[in-house]
């Protein structure tokens, strides 16, 4: 028993030390945002500082923060909703189909998920240019939905496949319509899967940087692009950048923390 408590103590100390080292970059980011500009650039680096909200006031002068936030929200929610609308029914259909080709189609979606975006982005860019959608939120939503919808399809395919058919069959013999068997019987039981899928879609498109960098313009760019684009101009210090980074990281981090359980579920089911 004593050996066991000692082992736990050793484990916990190791974990705390690792975590403490691990969190240095995060703590630096958070603290920088509250540092007055002069102290960020103190050389050698200073460890104490007098906290200020100066940087937060500054970013509202320098950026249209609400517009950037709106872009990020519209694009990530648009992608997520569209991906779920396309992917959830497709996942159900593939899981319930008796056809030999269903599994082939399911693997096709999995393969689409692995495609590096560079291979589709360039032709897609030209396509958007030709139909005049370049620089709009739609361009980003459309291309990000391909990867995300493929991901959702595959994930929901594995959720629905693990679900016994009995309930749906029973509902059907009781006179339930086919749509009813899907919408009212099967769908409510896979809500955790839908939450996990949505969580990953939101995270992916919120953090996405490469596609909006080339597909949006200065009016429609999201936070992630603004962060880098603003960097290197004269007025931007690490402090203002840290403050702006709060807006781009805090919502997602909080969401992941609160929906922790679904996050882990999604990880293990997503690519099986």
């Amino acid at each position, binding site marked *: 028993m004593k050996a066991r408590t000692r082992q736990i103590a050793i484990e916990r100390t190791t974990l705390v030390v*690792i975590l403490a080292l691990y969190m240095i970059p995060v703590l630096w980011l958070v603290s920088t945002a509250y540092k007055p500009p002069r102290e960020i650039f103190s*050389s050698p680096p200073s460890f104490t500082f007098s906290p200020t909200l100066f940087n937060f006031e500054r970013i509202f002068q320098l950026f249209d923060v609400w517009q950037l936030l709106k872009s990020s929200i519209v694009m990530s929610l648009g992608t997520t909703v569209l991906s779920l609308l396309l992917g959830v029914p497709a996942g159900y259909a593939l899981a319930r189909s008796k056809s030999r080709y269903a599994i082939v189609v399911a693997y096709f979606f999995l393969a689409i998920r*692995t495609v*590096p975006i560079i291979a589709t982005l360039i032709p897609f860019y030209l396509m958007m240019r030709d139909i005049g959608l370049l620089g709009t939120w739609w361009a980003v939503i459309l291309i990000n939905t391909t*990867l995300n919808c493929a991901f959702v399809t595959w994930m929901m395919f594995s959720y629905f496949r693990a679900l016994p058919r009995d309930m749906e069959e029973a509902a059907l013999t009781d006179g339930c319509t086919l749509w009813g068997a899907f919408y009212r019987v099967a769908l409510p039981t896979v809500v955790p899967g839908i939450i996990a899928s949505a969580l990953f879609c939101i995270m992916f498109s919120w953090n996405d940087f490469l596609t909006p960098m080339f597909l949006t313009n200065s009016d429609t760019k999201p936070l992630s692009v603004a962060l880098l684009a603003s960097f290197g101009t004269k007025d931007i210090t690490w402090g203002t950048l840290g403050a702006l980074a709060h807006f781009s990281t805090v919502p997602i981090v909080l969401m992941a923390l609160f929906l922790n359980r679904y996050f882990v579920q999604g990880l293990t089911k997503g690519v099986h």
Partner: protein
Amino acid sequence: MKKRTGASTVLIQRGCSALATTSVGSIDFPQRKAARLRFQDRRRLFLIALAVPAVVYVVLIALWPLAQGIWYSFFDYNLLRGGGRRTFVGLANYAELWTDSTARRALINTFVFTFAAVALEFVFGLCLALLLWREGRFNRICLAFLLIPVTITPVVVGLIFRALLAVDYGFFGYYLAEWGISGPRGFLASTSAALPVVILIDVWEWTPLVALILLAGLKSLPGDILEAASADGATALQRFRLVVLPLLLPTVFLALVLRVMDAFRVFDIIFVTTGGGPGDATNSLMVYGVKQGLQFFNIGFASAIGNVAILCIAVLCAAFTLLIRRADVRANET
């Protein structure tokens, strides 16, 4: 063995369903049979209708651009030169990937990056997962903290490390330069150290993800086998090597494939910290492809880069699947 039983059950099932339909047909219920058939058809149509939107969407928005990309890769096609005219050049763009030293460096860097990052992430991730295995509130809190790096915007991760490694005021960079470890211009500006540093940044960001996946695998292991092993007097190391690791193999495979795929597509971190430099030291296929395609509008060459990236990922995934299958067979034999 497994295959044969599978095939025979399928045969039996087929036989049963054949029997069922003939018996229904023979007990004169022609209308009912027709209704049943119609129901099966309706069901099939319903399922097809549910799947079609997603399939059509992916074919139109993903497969069609992919096909165009393959087509463009055989042309000398530059939007900024020659009025965007296309000249057929065959495989010249692909040959250039090897003859052009920048492209070759990018290809090699991508492989080095992928293997080094994923190997380190796996080793550290496994250690973390084993440390966190025990149930309890303390470990759950630690887990929550570990989620943070994974969810932070990759652009922000790049910027954080760029600041931390800055030589004049960075938290790490200042001391590394001061103590003469990194040279006066810092790690990110050194041709030999930049790639390892970028790899370490990726390791920082994604090790928790690997740990989370492996932990989920560890928690789903059957407890009785582990208890039996320790009751038989197996040491911790033996238990790990002979019981845990073989059972964990599918999860390990999942984590590795997921990370290899993503590491091969690395863009944000490199683009933000070094932009592919100094020189070509940290250039990766994605960074180079994006530069060629969307900054120099060298569409043909950039398409070739993208296609090679797809090919590499496909080969890596296939290789992993083969390896894991072989390991699985060996584990089953012993």
